[in-house]
C-alpha cells in the first residue's frame, strides 16, 4: 500500500468520542435555538472553550465535524473573535482595558506593574500557568477606570498598589 493511501486512511480515522457528553448536550441545546446550523458554530466553540479552557485544532475539527461545517469556515469564526482562544491560556485570563478612558487614568503604568509582577506581556501566559494577559478595547466601565477582568470578575479603580492582593486571591483559589 502506498504511503499516500496510508496517510489518507489515517486522516479519515475515526475521531469519535472527542467531544464530552456535557459539551454535546450544550451544543444540542444551542442547536434548538437557531434555524441554521452555521449559527451554532460560535456557540459550540464557546462551549468547548468553557470545558477545556481553549480551542485546540483537534477541538475545532471535532466541532466542525459534529456540526457538519467546513473546518475553514469555523476557523474563520474562531479567529475573528479574540475571546476564542486558539492557543492555551492560563487558569485565569486577564482582560485588560487599554482604551481611551483607562489610558487617561493611567492604565499604562498599571500594566507595567502587572507585567512586572507576573512576568508577562500582552498575549503571554505566566510561567506558573496561572495568568494570561489579553488587551481589550473597552469593558464598559469607564467611570471607574482603569478596569480589568480576571476570569469572570470585574476589577475597578485599579492602581499599582492593589494588584498584588487581587492576583494572590486568584492564585489561592481552588477550582
Amino acid at each position, binding site marked *: *500500500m*502506498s*504511503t*499516500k*493511501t*496510508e*496517510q*489518507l*486512511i489515517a486522516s*479519515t*480515522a*475515526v475521531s*469519535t468520542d472527542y467531544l464530552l457528553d456535557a459539551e454535546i448536550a450544550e451544543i444540542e441545546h444551542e442547536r434548538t435555538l437557531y434555524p*441554521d446550523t452555521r449559527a451554532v458554530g460560535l456557540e459550540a466553540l464557546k462551549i468547548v472553550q468553557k470545558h477545556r479552557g481553549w480551542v485546540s*485544532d483537534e477541538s*475545532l*475539527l471535532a466541532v466542525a465535524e459534529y456540526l457538519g461545517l*467546513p*473546518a*475553514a*469556515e*469555523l*476557523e*474563520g469564526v474562531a*479567529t*475573528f473573535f*479574540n475571546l476564542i482562544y486558539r492557543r492555551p491560556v492560563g487558569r485565569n485570563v486577564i482582560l485588560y482595558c487599554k482604551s481611551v478612558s483607562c489610558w487617561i487614568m493611567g492604565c499604562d503604568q498599571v500594566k507595567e506593574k502587572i507585567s512586572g509582577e507576573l512576568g508577562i506581556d500582552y498575549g503571554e501566559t505566566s510561567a506558573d500557568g496561572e495568568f494570561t494577559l489579553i488587551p481589550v478595547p473597552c469593558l464598559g466601565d469607564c467611570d471607574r477606570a482603569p478596569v480589568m477582568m480576571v476570569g469572570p470578575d470585574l476589577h475597578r479603580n485599579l492602581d499599582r498598589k492593589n494588584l498584588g492582593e487581587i492576583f494572590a486571591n486568584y492564585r489561592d483559589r481552588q477550582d
Partner: protein
Amino acid sequence: MPVQALSTMTDKAKVEISIDGVTYEVNAGSNLLQECLSLGLDLPYFCWHPCMGSVGACRQCAVKQYRDEEDSAGIMTMACMTPVQPGARISIEDQQAKAFRAGVIESLMISHPHDCPVCEEGGECHLQDMTLMSGHNYRRYDKKKVTHRNQYLGPFINHEMNRCITCYRCVRFYNEYAGGEDLSAQAAHHFTYFGRHREGTLESEFSGNLVEVCPTGVFTDKVFSENYTRKWDLQTAPSICAGCGVGCNIAPGERYGELRRVVNRYHSELNGYFICDRGRFGTGYVNDAERLKTPLDGADKELDAAAAQRQLCEIAGSDGGTIGIGSPRAGNEANFALRKLVGEENFHAGYSDAEHACMQLIAEAASDPRFHNPSIREIEQADAVLVLGEDVTNTAPRVALALRQSVHNKALELADGANIPRWQDAAVRELAQQERSPLSIFACGATRLDDVASDRVIDTPSALARNAFELAHRIDSDAPSGGGGVDALARIADQLLAARRPLIVAGASGGDIDLIKAAVNVAGALRKRRGNGGASPVDLCLLTAEVNSMGLHLMTRPENSLGAALRKLSSGEAANVIVLENDLYRRAPHAGVDAALAAAGQTAALDLLPNRTTAKADLVLPVTAFSEQQTSYVNYEGRAQLAYQVHRSHSAARPAWQWTGGFEHFRRALLDCADSIPAFAKLGDVLPDTSNLPNGIKVPRQSERYSGRTAMKANLNVHEPKQTQDPESALAFSMEGVPPRRDATILASSWAPQWNSNQSISKFQDEINGPLRQGHGGTLLLEKRSESGEYHPLPAKVDGAGLELLPALQIFGSEELSSRSEAIRARMTGAYVAISPADAQRHGLQQGQGVTLSGAGGVTATALTCIRTQMSAGAVALYVGDAEIDFHGLFHGLGARVELAPAEAPEGRGLGELIVSDLARGRDYV
C-alpha cells in the same frame, strides 16, 4: 450637452446621467461603477467583479454625487453601491473624490511589500494599475508592516499573503461562486488572512481562477512561476481549451518555444471570466520531452518527412483497402483530411462504441426544434435543473460551475421581490440564506454538486434510467412509464413544470445511452406540457466528452463506429489502418484492438505523444499540439470555434491535415471541409473578417513591449533571424501590425492604456458582461430539422450476477492529454473502484486495499478499493487513471456486471489525492 449613446443594447431601459458635466445614456437598475466602466471611463475599484457584483468593501470607487445643478458641495459615495438614478449628477474628477481614492490606496498599501520586481503579478497587476491611476506614489507610513506566514496550497497555486489588500474577492469567488469550502477569511482587521484551515491542496476544481480573481499577487500560478515570463514577453493567440467538450476560450502564452501558461479568454456566451483547473494546468504535455519529434517506422527508425509522406500515401493507396480512425481530440481539419484520404465510407469514429451510440442520440436531439442546447450563460439562467447521470464537475467542469450559479436564481428572484438590486451581492445572499432554485441529481454516488442539490436520486445505472423514464411519465402520461419510482419524482416533476426555464442535463462521457434517452423523454414531456404554440424550446444540455467529439460525429457515418473498424480489420475486409491522434486501447476492448492491429497489414498512427497504439504502428507521424497549429473544434452545443496557432513547433511535427490531406494551407483545408460536408457548410464563418486589415497587415501575437526579440537566440547565432512568416492566419509572429485595440479584429490578450491586468477586458466590451466588440463567438453549425415527437421506449431490463459497472471520471486524470501534464499528474490518484460500504463488506474489501474485477469474457483488472458512503449498493464505478486497465473489455455495454475479489494492491499512485466528500471512515465499513 452632447448625448453619447455608447451602448448598442436596446432591451434594457436607459436613463440619462451626468458624469463630470457630460450626459450619458446608461442602463437603469445598474450601479454607477459598472456603468462608468461600460462607458469606458477610468474609475479604480478592487472588490467589485463583473461576475460577482458589488459588496462595497474596499471603498476604492468613491465618486462625488450632487443633488442637483445648484449643489456644488456634493457627497462622497461608493459608485459600486449606488444605483443609477435618472438625472443623477456625479463627478469622478472632483478633487476631493480623487484625494479620497488616493487615500484609500495609500491605506491598502500600508503593509503591501515592495516586491513587484519579483512578483509574478507584476506587469499585469490590478493593484499596480489602480495605484498609478489614483495617483498615490509615495509611502508616508514608516512603521513595521504586518507580515504573514504563507501556506502550501498544492501543486497549482502559490500563496503570498503579505501582498493581500483584503478585498475579499478570493473567498467571494472560491466559496460563494465556486462552492469551495476549504478557503476562508480568518482573523480580523490588519491580521486578516485568507487561507486554508491548515496547509494542503486547494480542493476546488476552479482554484486556478484565484490567480485571475486576486487583484494582486497573493494567489499566483505555481506551474507558471517555475518557468516564469512577464505577460508582455509572452507570445499569445486566441485559442480553445482542448480539455473537454465545452470549448472554453483560452489565451495560452509561449516563450522560448515552450507553452508557459494558460489564462482565461473572455467569451460572453461560454466561459465568461472563468475556466477550470484542467484547462489551466493541463497543457504541460505540449512541452513534454517525450513528444514525438520525427516520423518513425515500425522499428522506431527515424524517417525524413518526404519518405514518411510517401509511405503514408502507399498505405492509403494500397490494395485491400485502408480505413481511417478519426479522433475526438483532433480538430475538424485533421479529421476531414483523413476522411478525404481514405474516403467517407472508410472513415470511422475514434471514440468508444458506447459513446458512438450516445453521439447519435445527442445529434438527433440537437436537430430537434423542441429542444435547445444551451450555452453556459443560458445554463446559468435555468431555474430548475435535472442532472441525469453525468458527473458534470469531472466531465465538463465549466458547466458544473454554471449549474452552481443557476441555483442562485431563487435568490435573485427574492431580491427582485424585495426591491434589492441584483448586483447587491451581499444583500441578495443575506436575504436568500439557504433558499435555492431546485437542482436534482440522478447519480450512482456522491457528486461535487451535492451541496447545492435539492434532491438526489442515488441508485444503480439501470435503476436510475427507470426512475428517469418514470419522471418523464409523471410529467406527461404519454411517455412510457419506468414503473415504481422514488418519492422525490413527484416533487421534481412539479419543480420542472413550474419553472420559467427548466434545464435537463445528461452526457456521453459515461456511455449511458439509456439516461440520454430518458433526458430526451423528460425534456420532450416538458415541452409538450408547456404547450407548443409559441413556447420556446426546452433547454436540453447533452454534453459531449471531448473537445471535438461533435465535429468528429458530424463527419462520420452512423454505421462507422470504432467497433466496426476493428471488425473490418480483423476480418480482412480492410487491410490497412490510419489512426489519427488516438490511443485505441483507451477506446475499445484490448482483445479487439490487439486482433485488429495484428490482422492489419500496415498501421499508421499520427499523434503527439507515444502511446500503446503508436507502439504498434508501422509508421508514426508526429503531429502538432493544439497550441502549435490552427484548427477548428465543435463543442457540445454544435458551436464551431477557431483556435489560432500560438507558437511554432520546432520539431518535424506537422498538423495532421498536412500529413494526410496534402493541404498546403489551413484555410484550404477548412474551406474544403465546409464545401464537402453539408453539416459544416457554415464552418467558413469562423474565419476572421479581415476587411479592416488592409494590404496584408496582420494582428501581432507579441505585445508592443515584447523584449529580447533580437537577443533571445543570440546564444546560437548573433545574426537576427528573419521573423517567421505566418501564411496561415491573420496573426503574425511579430510585434508589428494592428494591435488588439477595442475595435480590433482578433483579441488574444486584452490590454488598454492604464489597464495592464485582465480587468482591461471591460475596455473591449460595449457593456460589462456583454459580447466583445470582436464578436468572435464561434458559429453554431447544427440546423434544426423536423421534430420527431416520439418518446424513447423503456429499455429492456438486463439482469445478471455481480455488480453493475460504470466509469468513474476524474477532472484530473480522465482526459488523455492533460493527464500527461506534470501538474495534473501531481493531482491524480491510482486506479480505483468506488464501492458502497455494504458491497465492500460483502466482498471482504477494506479501504485502500487491492481489488480484482472480473467481467464477462475473462477480462480482469486490479485497482484500489475506494469505499464511499454515498455509493449506490449494487453498482461499482471504476476509475482507470493511467493504469493500463482494459475498461472497455469490462464495460462491454450498459448493464455490464463485474465480480470482485480482494487482491494485492497495485503499485503506484494511491488514493491520497482523491477529493470526495463521502470517503468511508473506519466506523462506516468495519
